[in-house]
Structures are given as structure tokens and as C-alpha cells.
């Protein structure tokens, strides 16, 4: 019987069994839901397939969203990526993440990861990593299992819903999931996975969820681009041997407590922050006609 309540538990289980976090959680899922590792692999491989389709569609899609607030930025970034300060791989990841988020905004097909509002981060970072490392599909799918395990712990000990924890719960969780996946894809240790999660989340603590007109568009779409890159930096720091002074489970605890103390106005209610700026209010009025 496999049981864990924290990232530290996952790391210890992986170390004691001389394996990866993904290997541990696939066995855990098998015990819990009576689905074989093969069945789980198929579902996760399908998720990866949909993620890739959403990236492909995202970086070519020019369509505006229902509200007209977003659309077409991934195409701009994709065209610009060779010229930027941060390098082509980083900008390609930003383009992919913005693209997936734009596909979401035009009612296209995406994988919630962990939510629809944060759906671009993990796919974009994982794709960039796979291209850099030349990972096999199996390695990618396993990294997605590790990402999922990280999300399971966050959901258990904090939250993955903007309405409960603000954007740190959605994009912050996605950043932690992506950073952990990227460490595993580069052959990093389970401990390094934990460090990457800590670093990624720590630097997004307290993030407000204040979307204009209550729609998953502004600032969500572009934020997906920023946070995909953020998760890559966190993975790189961990792989370089940088440690987090505050251990990962303490960071998740901090995220939980901050989430509880954030005002309701910045927890997906569209009653504060960017949503209630002069422009934000005008846009909401224009979209909903009141």
C-alpha cells in the first residue's frame, strides 16, 4: 500500500525504491483506481497528444476570443522568437504557452493542467524540454505523471483553484508541476524535483487572480507565457545544484496560508485588481453591455 501526504514523502519513496516519482505514483494510482499502468500510460499519452495539438493550433491561430480581449499574440511571438533577448527556446516556450491559452479562450480543445486557466504552462515547458533533451515519448509521459503527482500534493495540502487560493494556486501550481517534470526529463534526482517545485512556487506566492470581466483571458493568457519560462528557470536552478532554503512542503504550506489570507476581491471574483481598474471596468461593460 503506497501512501504519501507530501512532496518529501514522494521523494523518500522514490529514493528508497531507487526509482522516479512517476514510477511511485503510477503504482499508487493503480492501487486507488484499479487502472493498470498500461491503461494509465494510454490516458496520459492521449493527454500529451492533445497538448501538442493545442500548441500547434495555438502558434498558428489568429482567431479572437468570444470577448475580443485576446487572440493572435502567440503568432506574433512565434514569428519574433529568433530575435529576442532570452533566446529562441525560451521564446518558443512562451509562444507555445500563450498559444495554448488562446486556444482555450476561443473554445478550442485543451488539457486542464491543473486548470483551464493555467493550461499552457506545463505543455509549453515540457515541449521545450523535450526538444532540448531529445526525450522519448515514454520519458515525456513519465514526466507528466510526476507533474501530476506534484499537483495532487498541492491540491491536498493547499489548493489548485483560483477561487480558493488566487492565481498562485493555478499558475503557481502549474509552475511547480512543470519545473518538477523538467528536472526529471533532464535526469535530475527526485530531491532536485522537489527543489524545483519549491523554487517555482516560492516566486509566485501571493499572486492575485483578478481577471478582467471574470474571463480566463486578461491577464491569464500572457501570464501562461511568463510562467512557462519561470518554470524553466526553476528547473535550471535546481539542476545547477541550487537549493531552496525553505523546503518544498513548507512552501506549499505558505501558499495555503497566503491563499486563505488573500482578500476575496483577488480570488477569481473580478471584484479587485486588474478587473476593477478604469480600463478593466470599461472592458467588462463593453463585453457584457452593462
Amino acid at each position: 500500500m503506497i501512501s504519501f501526504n507530501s512532496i518529501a514523502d514522494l521523494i523518500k519513496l522514490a529514493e528508497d525504491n531507487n526509482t522516479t516519482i512517476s514510477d511511485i505514483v503510477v503504482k499508487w494510482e493503480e492501487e486507488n483506481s484499479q487502472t493498470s499502468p498500461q491503461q494509465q500510460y494510454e490516458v496520459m499519452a492521449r493527454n500529451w497528444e492533445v497538448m501538442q495539438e493545442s500548441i500547434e493550433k495555438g502558434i498558428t491561430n489568429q482567431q479572437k476570443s468570444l470577448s475580443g480581449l485576446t487572440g493572435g499574440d502567440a503568432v506574433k511571438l512565434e514569428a519574433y522568437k529568433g530575435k529576442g533577448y532570452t533566446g529562441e527556446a525560451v521564446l518558443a516556450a512562451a509562444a507555445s504557452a500563450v498559444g495554448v491559452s488562446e486556444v482555450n479562450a476561443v473554445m478550442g480543445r485543451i488539457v486542464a493542467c491543473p486548470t483551464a486557466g493555467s493550461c499552457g504552462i506545463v505543455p509549453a515547458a515540457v515541449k521545450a524540454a523535450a526538444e532540448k533533451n531529445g526525450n522519448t515519448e515514454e520519458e515525456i509521459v513519465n514526466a507528466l505523471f510526476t507533474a501530476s503527482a506534484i499537483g495532487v500534493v498541492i491540491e491536498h495540502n493547499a489548493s489548485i483553484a483560483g477561487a480558493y487560493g488566487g492565481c498562485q494556486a493555478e499558475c503557481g501550481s502549474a509552475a511547480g508541476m512543470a519545473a518538477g517534470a523538467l528536472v526529471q526529463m533532464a535526469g535530475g534526482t527526485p530531491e532536485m524535483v522537489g527543489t524545483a517545485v519549491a523554487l517555482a512556487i516560492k516566486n509566485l506566492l501571493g499572486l492575485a487572480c483578478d481577471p478582467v470581466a471574470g474571463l480566463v483571458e486578461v491577464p491569464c493568457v500572457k501570464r501562461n507565457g511568463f510562467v512557462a519560462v519561470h518554470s524553466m528557470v526553476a528547473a535550471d536552478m535546481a539542476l545547477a545544484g541550487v537549493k531552496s532554503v525553505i523546503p518544498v512542503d513548507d512552501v506549499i504550506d505558505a501558499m495555503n496560508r497566503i491563499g486563505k489570507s488573500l482578500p476575496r476581491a483577488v480570488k477569481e471574483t473580478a471584484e479587485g485588481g486588474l478587473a476593477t481598474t478604469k480600463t478593466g471596468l470599461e472592458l467588462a461593460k463593453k463585453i457584457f453591455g452593462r
Partner: protein
Amino acid sequence: MFFRLGDIFEEVSMKGLFDIVGPVMIGPSSSHTAGAARLGLMALKILGEPVVKAEILLHGSFAKTYRGHGTDKALLAGIMGFEPEDDRIRNAIDIAKERKLEFSFDTVDLMDAHPNTAILKLTGESGKCTTIEGSSIGGGNIVINRIDAFEVHLTGQYPALVVVQKDKPGLINKITGVLALYEINVAYMRVFRQKRGQEAMMILETDEDLTDDVLKACRVASGVITAFAIPAI
């Protein structure tokens, strides 16, 4: 209030791996789009036949933001039997018109109901009508709160046996006896009634699918007015 073991375990048990990476869905919102599609789908399963007319009332956040989130399209898509990942959701309004499905959307104030709540008044092709109230409670998960006059609690996660019966002693025993005979395990069970001694409803969520034989056996039990199955969605 209904005491439900699941409520306790839901607090402490962890999500599965595919609740975090997944589901595959049509955007933009798991609660306002994917959940809305599942609400529509569940309403269709409860009606049990193709819908020809749908009057839909939206409350709270659904009422405020449904256009921007495509909640209206998702609800209609579900009513037509489309899954939350079906990309026809985006064109559901046009498809409904092509299918001559008569529909209307309006807003309603249900006071302290969950912010993402909809009431669906559906008419089926045989003329059968049913009114369903349900809420999208986050992450694409839903709860059906009301079926016609009955307050219920139904999630669509399990196959459900719905029995409308006279409120009198011994009926629960008869129905669970039928399930025992067919080796069907009950995950959750709830009994609802309007008034003592009148019509009552029981809903049994089960681990196994419910066959026609099971339904027939339930219907012949004395005191049972009707019994039908709602598949998991």
C-alpha cells in the same frame, strides 16, 4: 441535511492523477464550460430521450458571465449529448437550430444557491417533461440538486438507480434486495420525500452498471411507481 460518508472522505481523500493533468476539455473554463456541458449531459440522461425543447435559466456567475465563457453553448451541447471535450461545443447554438431544437436562455435569482447554477426545463421527443436544477462546483465536477419536485444530490460519477415510490415501510429493503440478487454494490444511497406518506424518491449510486433486468425487477416491487437508471457521465 443528509449524512453522507462520501462527504467526509472527500475532505481527506486525494484527487487522482488524471484530475490534475486532465481532463481533456473545450475551453475556456472548467466550471463555466466543461462543467456546464456535463450539467447538460446529465440532464439529458435524466430525461432519458432526445430533447426537442429546452428552457434554461442561469443564476449567479453563470447569469453574469455566460456569454464570455460559452456557458450557453456548453449547456446546449450537453443537452444534445456532446461530451465536454467535443469541439462541436463551439457551434452548439447553430447545431441546435439545425436540429430544430427549440431553446431559450434567461437569468434567474435563486438567492443563496451555488453561484454556478442552472435550471433546465426539458421536453423530450415523446412529450415527456422534466425540470432539473444543477450546479457546476469546480474542476468540471457537477451536482444535480433537484429533479422536478425532489431535492436530490447526484454527481454523475456513478451509475444511479432512481426509484419513485410510495413513502411506506419496507420499500428500501425490497430495492436493496433486488440489487443484492444481481450482485450490485451500492456506493451511496439517499432517500428523499416531499411529505410523509406521499411520493418519495430514492437514489442509489452503484459501482456496477444497471441492466434492464434490474430495472424490471425494481418496477414490479409493490409500492414502486417508477424506476429508471442514469448512467455515469
